[in-house]
C-alpha cells in the first residue's frame, strides 16, 4: 500500500497530525454526546410521566428557570381537575458535588420511581430518595443520611429509573424540594394528563388564553422547544465548526508538507503519464487514512473526556453520558471523511496547476 508507506515515511509527523485531528474530533464527539444525551434524557423524564400537556412559565429558557406561582397551579387544577401534577426541579450546590439535581414531585408520583430498596419519603417529612448512581458514588444505602441544603436528610429509599439524569439525583416530596431550593410557593413545570386525547389542542389554547404568564405545549414538542437546549445546540455547532476547521488546517498542512517534499516524485509520475487526478487520489488515500485514524483516536479520547467529567465534582452525577452512541460515532466518521476532502482542496489545486517540468526540477 503506497499511501501507508507514504504516511509511515514521517512517523512523528503523521502521529502529530492524527493527534491534531483526534483532539478536534474528540471535542466534537464529547460535546455532541453531552448535548444529545441531555436532550434525550430530559425527554425521557418528561415522557415517563405520560403527560399530554406540559406547562411552564412564559419565556423560561428551560424547566430549571421556569417559575409558576401556586395560585396559577390552583387555578389550573380548578380548570382541569386532578389531572395536573406540579414538579419542582433545581440544582443544589453541595460540598461533595456542585450540581446535585433535585426533583420535587407530589406524593402521588413517588411510587412511579422504581424503588430498589427502602421506601418513599413520608408526606411532610424531610427525608429523600436518591438514585442508584448517586448511591453508588456516595456509597449510601437506604437508612443512611446525605448532606443536603446545609443540613442532612435521611435516605428512605434508593430508586432506579434507567435514566442517568434522574438516577444521579435526589427526589423529595414537593414541599421539601421547594424548601431545599428556596422556591416556596413556586413550581417549575406542570404536567397535565388528559383522558380524551382529542381535547389536547383545545385545552392548550384555553390554558394559554386564560394564563398569560404560562406557556402550555404538547408534551411531545416540549423538549424541542426548550430554549436552553437550542442555545446549547447552537453552541455545540459553533464548537464543532471551530474544531472542524482547526483539524482541517492540521491535515492540510501535513498534506502540503508531503506534497512539497514529493514534488519531484509527482513530476515523475506525471512524466510517466499520470493525470493529476491519480496523484490527488494518492493524496486522498493518505488524507482519509490520517483522518480516520484521527476519528478512532478522537472517539477514544472523547470517552476518556466523558469519564473524566463524570467523575468530576464540578459536574452533577449522571449528567454526562459514559458511552458514545453509534449515531454519534458514525456521524464523527462522516465528518472525518468531509474533513479529509476539504483538507485536500488546497493540495489538489497545487497538483492541478503543477507543471511536470517544474516538478521534475524541484529540489
Amino acid at each position, binding site marked *: 500500500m*503506497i499511501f501507508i508507506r507514504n504516511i509511515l515515511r514521517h512517523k512523528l509527523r503523521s502521529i502529530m497530525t492524527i493527534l491534531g485531528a483526534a483532539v478536534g474530533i474528540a471535542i466534537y464527539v464529547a460535546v455532541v454526546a453531552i448535548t444529545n444525551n441531555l436532550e434525550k434524557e430530559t425527554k425521557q423524564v418528561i415522557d415517563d410521566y405520560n403527560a399530554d400537556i406540559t406547562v411552564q412559565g412564559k419565556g423560561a429558557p428551560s424547566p430549571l428557570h421556569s417559575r409558576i406561582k401556586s395560585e396559577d397551579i390552583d387555578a389550573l387544577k380548578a380548570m382541569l381537575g386532578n389531572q395536573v401534577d406540579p414538579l419542582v426541579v433545581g440544582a443544589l450546590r453541595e460540598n461533595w458535588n456542585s450540581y446535585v439535581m433535585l426533583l420535587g414531585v407530589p406524593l402521588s408520583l413517588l411510587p412511579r420511581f422504581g424503588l430498589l430498596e427502602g421506601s418513599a419519603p413520608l408526606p411532610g417529612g424531610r427525608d429523600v430518595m436518591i438514585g442508584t448512581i448517586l448511591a453508588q458514588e456516595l456509597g449510601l444505602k437506604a437508612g443512611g443520611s446525605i448532606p443536603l441544603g446545609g443540613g442532612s436528610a435521611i435516605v428512605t429509599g434508593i430508586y432506579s429509573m434507567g435514566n442517568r439524569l434522574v438516577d444521579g439525583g435526589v427526589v423529595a416530596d414537593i414541599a421539601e424540594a421547594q424548601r431545599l431550593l428556596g422556591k416556596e410557593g413556586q413550581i417549575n413545570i406542570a404536567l397535565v394528563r388528559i383522558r380524551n386525547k382529542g381535547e389536547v389542542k383545545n385545552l392548550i389554547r384555553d390554558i394559554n388564553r386564560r394564563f398569560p404568564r404560562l406557556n402550555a405545549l404538547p408534551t411531545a414538542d416540549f423538549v424541542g422547544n426548550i430554549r436552553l437546549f437550542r442555545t446549547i445546540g447552537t453552541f455545540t455547532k459553533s464548537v464543532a465548526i471551530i474544531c472542524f476547521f482547526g483539524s482541517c488546517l492540521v491535515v492540510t498542512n501535513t498534506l502540503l508538507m508531503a506534497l512539497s517534499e514529493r514534488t519531484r*516524485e509527482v513530476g515523475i*509520475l*506525471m*512524466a*510517466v*503519464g499520470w493525470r493529476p487526478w*491519480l496523484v490527488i487520489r494518492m493524496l486522498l488515500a493518505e488524507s482519509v487514512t490520517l483522518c480516520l485514524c484521527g476519528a478512532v483516536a478522537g472517539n477514544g479520547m472523547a470517552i476518556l473526556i466523558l469519564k473524566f467529567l463524570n467523575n468530576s465534582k464540578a459536574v452533577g452525577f449522571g449528567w454526562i453520558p459514559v458511552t458514545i452512541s453509534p449515531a454519534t460515532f458514525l456521524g464523527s466518521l462522516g465528518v472525518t471523511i468531509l474533513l479529509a476532502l476539504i483538507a485536500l482542496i488546497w493540495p489538489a489545486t497545487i497538483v492541478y496547476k503543477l507543471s*511536470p517540468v517544474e516538478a*521534475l526540477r524541484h529540489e
Partner: protein
Amino acid sequence: MPFLIVDQLSKKYPNDNTNALKGISFSMLKGEIVAVVGPSGCGKSTLLNLIEYLDLPTSGKILVNGKPVGDYGPAHTFRSKMVGFVFQYHHMVSGMTLAENVAAPLIAQGVGKLERRRRALEHLENVGLGHRAHFLPNLVSGGERQRAAVARALITSPSIILADEPTGNLDSSAGEAVFKLMLAQSRLNGSTVIIATHNLAIAAMADRIIQMRDGELISPV
C-alpha cells in the same frame, strides 16, 4: 516515411532572454536510435521535454506518425501511450517498490492490479532485477535503479523512448551495461529512441548522432 518529425522547434522560457531551442528540425524513422550530444545547457533536455509533451514549444511542431502530438489527446494520454522516458537520475518514487515504480505507467493506462504486477515482474526479469522487485529504491544500487527505470520506460511498449543522460549518474561499466540493455530492449520493441548524452562512446552505439550547441543543431558528427 519519417515516424518522428521535429519541425522548426523553438523554446524560450519566460524570465530568460536566450532561446533554449532555436528552430530545430530533424526527423527519425521508426525504430531508429539517435544520440543527441552537446555540452550542458545546449538544449538537449528541453528538446526531450518538448517531444515528451512535458512542456510546450514557443513555436514549431512535433509530428508523430504524421500527427501533431496534440492530436493524441491530453498530454498525459500521449505520454502514457506513446512515450517511455529514462531520466538522468533514475527518478524513482521512493514510497514505491521497484515493481510498483515499473508498473506506474500502467496505472495511468488503467491496467488492472494483477496484470500490472505480472508485467512489472516480467520487465524486471528482463533487466535482471526479478529478485529485487519488492525492494524500495533506497535499498538497491544506482545501477539497479537505472535498470528499473529502463524497465519502467519499456513496460508500455512505447513507440518512442526518450533517455536524458541515462548513464550520467553511473560509473562507465555500469553505464554501458544499462545503455546496452536499453538498446537491446528498445530494438526488441521496435521503438524509436532518442538519447541525450555527453558520452561519445555511448553515443557511438546509436544509429545516428545529432550534435547540438546553444539551442541549435550543428552538422551530424
